[in-house]
């Protein structure tokens, strides 16, 4: 499994996707291969996929530290912890000064499972931003 296999699969899906989404994949150059995946109509919240030795990581950035209403930061964090388990397939994370949700799949996962993961991650991201907007500027 590598990002090119994933990109090929998603691009070839076209209208045939089981999740009802259209995927657009762009590889990003860098020290490790990263795939930027946009779901049609949700281009503002791309998903970044990278593949390591044993897992496929799918990440969506939510917001930066600078977007949080500072008085409510602690409350926001607690809500994140509380929401972490109920949220299907995705978990909260922080990378640098950015908050994110991510899903990690075993390297042996099928392409259909990866597609499902991406669709759920995207839905989660939209719901999370909606539900957490009271903590954001």
């Amino acid at each position, binding site marked *: 499994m590598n990002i090119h296999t994933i990109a090929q699969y998603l691009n070839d899906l076209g209208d045939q996707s089981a999740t009802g989404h259209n995927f657009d994949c762009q590889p*990003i*150059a*860098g*020290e*490790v291969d*990263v795939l*930027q995946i946009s779901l049609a*109509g*949700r281009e*503002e*919240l791309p998903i*970044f996929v*990278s593949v*390591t*030795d*044993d*897992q496929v*990581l799918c*990440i969506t950035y*939510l*917001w*930066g530290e600078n*977007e949080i209403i500072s008085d409510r930061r602690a409350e926001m964090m607690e809500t994140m912890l509380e929401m972490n388990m109920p949220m299907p397939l995705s978990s909260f994370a922080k*990378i*640098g000064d950015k908050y994110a949700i991510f899903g990690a799949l075993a390297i042996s996962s099928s392409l259909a499972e990866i597609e499902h993961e991406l669709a759920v991650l995207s839905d989660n991201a*939209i719901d999370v*931003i*909606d539900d957490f*907007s009271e903590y*954001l*500027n």
Partner: protein
Amino acid sequence: MSIFKKIFTAIRGGATEVGEAVVDANSTRIFEQEIRDAENHLTKAKRDLTDVMAKQMQASREVERLQKDIATHEGYATQALNKGDEALALEVAEKIAALETELTTQQAALENFTASVARLKDLIKKSERQVADYKRQLSVVKTTDSVHKATAAITDNFVSGNSKLLSAKESLERIKAKQQNFDDRMKASEQLQAEQGDASLEAKLKAAGIGEQESSANSILARLKSKQGE
């Protein structure tokens, strides 16, 4: 120090500058070598186990054979005694004594092998857990490194692509607007389809002469004539 603590310390210590590895490549390589060594030990231990288990089976068979042999000879000795042949009985008894000595030796060996098998199995289980744990830790290190590098690539891409970074709320609003637009279009097209459906039904009804009929020249003429006649 656990691997999590190490990474935690590295991140807190500000090793999050773009391009700076959280865990240096050299220690990762050493770690990978350790895993390979442990796996080699494991393979060797498994081979040893096979050898010892084979010896254990041999010893067990030997013990059985000796026990049977002793029983047979005890029978012979009794028969000799019954016949009053004391000398033959003594000779058989000597043979039994020799067999019993051998049995003791074999039993000791069997116990020894059984203990070795148990010990090796424990060792293998422990090593397997150890290797799995090493691999998990290495995965933590590599994933941290990969996420770090991926973040660098994504950040570079955003900067070089000159794409305007939207806030989370702005992004959501845009996505919702697009969704609304899509929903509206769906609704409009549904409505249109429904109207077209109505229209075609009306046409069919008209063709069949059912429902409201358009006034024809003949019917108008008939109406006028009837008015005239009043």
